[in-house]
Structures are given as C-alpha cells and as structure tokens.
C-alpha cells in the first residue's frame, strides 16, 4: 500500500530524471518531446493522487501522509506546474533556453511542494521547502548573462537560506519544548508539562511562521519579492507567485491546524497585525509600479494578506475559504502572467504597464482575457475573485473580525485602481508604441482554460467550497 502513497511524488521525480536523461543522451532531441514527457508525467501523477482521494494513509507515524488536504494541494501544484510548462514553451524556444534541465527542475520543485503539503513531520516540511527553493534559485538565473537576473538569484538564495535557518531554529525549539518534531503530537506533549515549555513553544511557532512567511511574502519579510519576481524569467515568476506560494500556505495551514488549539489566543493577534500590514502595504506600493511584473509582485503580497485574514481563527469554514481564495488567485495570476508572456518579440519583452495601451484594438482576444483576469484579481462580480473575497469576508465577519473586513474592503478599493488601470489602458487609450504580440497555441489553450475557470468559479462557487468544507477535515486528524 505504501508504495501507492508515494506515487504522485515518485512519478514527478522520475519524469524529471527521464526528461533530463532524454535531453542529455538522445541525438536530435525534438524539443516538444521534453514538454510532452513532462506533461504526461504530471497527468499520471494527478491520476495517482485522484486514486488516493478519501483513502487516508499515514507512513511512519506521519512522516508522509496522504489525506484529502494533501491531495487537493498536490493536484493544485501539479496543475499549476503543467500550465507553467505550457506557457513557458514558446518563451524557452525564442530565448534558446529549451533544455531538459528546465523541465526537470520544475518537476523536482513540484515534488518538493508535494512533500511540504503531505507530511506531519517538521523536518520533512523543511526538506521539502529546500527542495522547492533550490530549483527556484537555479531557474531564476536560468537565462544566463543577464546581470539583474543573477542579482535576483543571489538575493533570493541568500535570503531564503537566511529564512530557512529561522525555520530550522524553530524546529529545534519545538523539539526542545515538546520532545517531538511531529506536529500531531505537539499538543499532547505540551499538555503533560505545560508550564515550562509553553514560552519555548511560542518562540518556536514564531520562528516557524517567520520562515514560512518569507516564502509566502508576508509583509515584514517581503523585501525580496519584487526584485526576484522582476529579475526572474517571466514563466518562473508565474511559477513562484502561484505554486511556490501555495506550497508555503499548505505547510502553514497544516502546522497551524495542529498547533492552533494550544496557543490560539496568542496567534490571533499576530495574524490580525500581519494581515492588515501585508494587504495595505502590498496594495499601496503596487499603485506606483511602472513594471507589470513588479506590480503583480506587490499584488501577490497583498493577496497573501487577504488569506491571512481568515487564519486568525481556525475551523473547516476558514480553511475552505482560504483554499478557495488561493485557487482563485493562482488561476487569475497564471492567466495574467500568460498574457504578459505574449507581449514580446523573440527574446525582447515588453513589460511596461503602458505597453498595454490599445491592446484591445490590436488583439481583442488577449485584451478580453486580460480584463477577465484583472477583474478577478480586483474582485469584481461575475468573476471568481469576487466569490473568493466574499467567502473570506464572510468567514471573518462570522468570527467577529469586522474591523479586518473593513480594512479588507478599503484595500479592495485601492487595489481596483491599479488593476482597472490596465483595463483602462487596453480599452480607452491609443497605442503609444508598436508592441508586438506573439501568441502560440501553447499559450492560447491554457489561457482559454483559465479564463473559463475564472468565470465558472465566479458563477458556481458553492459546490467546490462545500466539497472542501465537508471532505477536507474528514481525514486531516489522525
């Protein structure tokens, strides 16, 4: 049985190795073979995850678990990796970067994410985090010879090592306080000798949140985000702002789920403060950004803040709302980056916000989809973004955090300015300079799927939220 448990992660690693060897050993490699092998591996991996649905299983007392929570996240990781691979294919070809390493590193990073979401052991979460971060560092400077992407990679590497060391320190404190690194056993261990170890427990949780907060770019730890998102190749920016961020949230929710009952009174205030400063700073700074990638970086910081709003309390409803919001966010964000990727000619990219001027007249397809994704990120009704925010605010109000909701609403209005500015530029402005757009079927098909998903989740959100609410927690408890 346990071999099936590892199948999703095993197959993504195996596919990575196959792609790497195929590119290295075969003569006259057709580049689309690499894409095809990777996508096939991802599809098989998703199928294996689906088989494990509602079959909770724990390997080695929580060293690796498979429950509905981990399966939902694994499928999301795999899907976002597949879309990133698809939209990056024409980009890689135009930049002469189409190597097996690219596919292999993305698949290894996906394996790291799956490890992060499906374990109760803090050491495995830490190693999964490293397995996710290291490929991202390499992918950040994948386009060699550009100074600012090397700078971004070095910044990312040093700061992520720094934050990882905080996370490790947190694990050490946790072990000191409770004698275990298994988060399912922490609360029990704590109740036996509460008085002595409680302060160390608080220090430990603080350090753990710091380490993960860096990955999901909560505000005091967000400084790296704009620079790295700007310097990385655009498909990798899409990958970092969706899959990697989702993995950080998966680990954070998993840890909080087990630790919250012990120290909830201390954590609620922490998350209120973090949520307010994260969304406010992200949105306000995003207004003044001229570069679309930096704008989306600050917007992704702000969206982390919205999700933190519901982590102030913990119940099936809050986690369901958080996961729904994250899904909505990654759909819209992947779509937005997909469109940013099309505005280029060969290896020259057009990343300024004003380059969107008059896009509607030139290419109504792209402009229409960009408008849908911007509406979704801003939270405007027929799209999924509205329903995501609705569920978040609803949960927050039900738990008595009306102030948070007011701050959230003010922030939504601020955010609407910079999202709708893109729509305004596309539809109301004349074209200022000749911006070419190259669109290939590899980008078109994901865009259509993401656009339909955005509208679909905006119109019929209740079924999927109800699914999360009822099935998510069936198996999360051991």
């Amino acid at each position, binding site marked *: 049985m346990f*071999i099936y448990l590892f199948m999703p992660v095993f197959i993504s690693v195996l596919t990575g190795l196959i792609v790497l060897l195929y590119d290295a*050993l075969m003569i006259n490699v057709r580049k689309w073979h690499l894409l095809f092998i990777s996508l096939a591996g991802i599809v098989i991996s998703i199928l294996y995850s689906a088989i494990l649905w509602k079959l909770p299983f724990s*390997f080695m007392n929580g060293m690796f678990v498979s429950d509905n929570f981990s399966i939902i996240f694994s499928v999301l990781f795999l899907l976002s990796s597949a879309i990133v691979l698809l939209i990056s294919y024409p980009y890689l070809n135009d930049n002469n970067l189409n190597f097996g*390493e690219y596919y292999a590193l993305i698949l290894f990073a996906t394996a790291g994410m799956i*490890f992060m979401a499906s374990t109760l052991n803090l050491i495995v979460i830490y190693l999964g985090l490293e*397995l996710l971060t290291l490929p991202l560092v390499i992918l950040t400077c994948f386009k060699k010879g550009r100074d600012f992407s090397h700078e971004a990679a070095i910044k990312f590497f040093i700061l992520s090592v720094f934050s990882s060391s905080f996370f490790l320190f947190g694990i050490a404190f946790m072990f000191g306080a409770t004698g275990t690194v298994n988060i399912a056993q922490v609360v029990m261990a704590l109740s036996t000798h509460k008085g002595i170890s409680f302060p160390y427990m608080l220090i430990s949780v603080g350090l753990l949140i710091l380490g993960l907060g860096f990955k999901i770019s909560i505000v005091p730890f967000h400084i790296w985000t704009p620079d790295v998102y700007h310097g990385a190749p655009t498909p990798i920016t899409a990958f970092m702002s969706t899959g990697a961020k989702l993995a950080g949230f998966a680990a954070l929710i998993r840890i909080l789920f087990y630790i919250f009952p012990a120290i909830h009174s201390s954590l609620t205030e922490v998350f209120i403060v973090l949520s307010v400063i994260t969304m406010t700073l992200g949105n306000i700074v995003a207004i003044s950004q001229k570069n679309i990638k930096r704008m989306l970086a600050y917007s992704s910081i702000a969206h982390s803040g919205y999700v933190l709003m519901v982590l102030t309390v913990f119940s099936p409803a809050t986690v369901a709302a958080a996961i729904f919001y994250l899904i909505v966010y990654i759909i819209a964000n992947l779509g937005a980056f997909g469109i940013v990727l099309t505005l280029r000619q060969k290896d020259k990219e057009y990343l300024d916000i004003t380059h969107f001027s008059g896009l509607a007249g030139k290419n109504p397809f792209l402009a229409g989809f960009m408008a849908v994704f911007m509406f979704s990120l801003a939270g405007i009704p027929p799209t999924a973004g509205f329903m995501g925010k609705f569920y978040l605010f609803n949960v927050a109000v039900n738990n008595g955090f009306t102030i948070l909701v007011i701050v959230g609403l003010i922030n939504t209005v601020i955010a609407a300015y910079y999202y709708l500015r893109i729509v305004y530029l596309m539809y109301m402005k004349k074209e200022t300079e000749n911006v070419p757009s190259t669109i290939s079927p590899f980008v078109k098909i994901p865009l259509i799927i993401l656009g339909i998903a955005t509208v679909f989740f905006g119109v019929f959100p209740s079924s999927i939220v109800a699914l999360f609410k009822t099935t998510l927690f069936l198996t999360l408890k051991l």
Partner: protein
Amino acid sequence: MGLIIFLILGIMAVVTASGVVIEKRPVYSAIYFIVNLITLSLIYLTLHAEFLAVVQVLIYAGAVMVLFLFMIMIMPPVVENRFGKINLEKFIIIPLLLILLFEIIYVLYSGLTIDIGKNMPPLSFEKFGGIASLGQILFKRYLVPFEITSLILLVAVIGAVYLRRPDQ
C-alpha cells in the same frame, strides 16, 4: 589475514594520498581524495570503529562533493576529447543507466512486500553507534528525509553543471 588487508589498505591510502598532491587536474585530485577517505574508513572498519567509518564517508565525502561543485563552478571547463570521434562515454553510460533502471524496477517490485515502517525494533543502547542501529534509523525511521536530501543534492549538482556549461 588482518595484516594482509591492512597492508593493502595502507598502500592504497598512501598511493591515493600522494595522488592528491601530485595530480595537476583539480577534479582528478578530488577523486583521489575521495578514494583516500574511503580507504581510511575501511581501515576504521577493520578496527571495529563502525560509526567512525560511516561518519568519515558521510561527512568528508559530502564535503568533497561540495568542493567538486565549486570546482565545476569556478574552473574553466577543459574540453578533452580523449576518445576520438567515437563517443565512448555514451557507450559506457547507457549500459550503466540500464543496469540502474533494472535495479530500481527490481527493488520497486520486490519492495511491495518489504515491510518498511512496520517492524521497527526499538533502539538498544548496547548496539548504539554501531552500523546496524545507524542503518536502522537512517533507512527505516528517517527514510523519507534521507531520500529528500538525496534529491536536494541532485538538484544542486544539476544546477551547478547547468550554470557552468558553456552556451550552446
């Protein structure tokens, strides 16, 4: 018997240690260094210092791997085509890969019945520090972290090679 083994290992240790110094190419020098460390750890094994032997290999060989990465990163790549026009490396690598693949498949199929994670003998203090208890902990209790660590090292190697490779 013990003396013969010691003599063989001792001579190997001396030869490889001088190889580290004499060899001019840094990568070869590092390989000599690894062989030297392994020989030393074998000598520890004959002295029944099992833990020391394992740690010797784990830590020093790990450190030398890092040294390797730095060398690949820093040194200019030397293109040596010693095999002429026939690409002999591929002829060696592909059979090795096939053997490895066969091993993996074999282990996977036989692994379906192996009881990893079920029968875990409790740690005993008499054997503490011996190879058996160390192996039990590393490959049973901490199997998952161990495997992830190997993947992280693989990613580091791929990254170093990619970043250092001359553009095609």
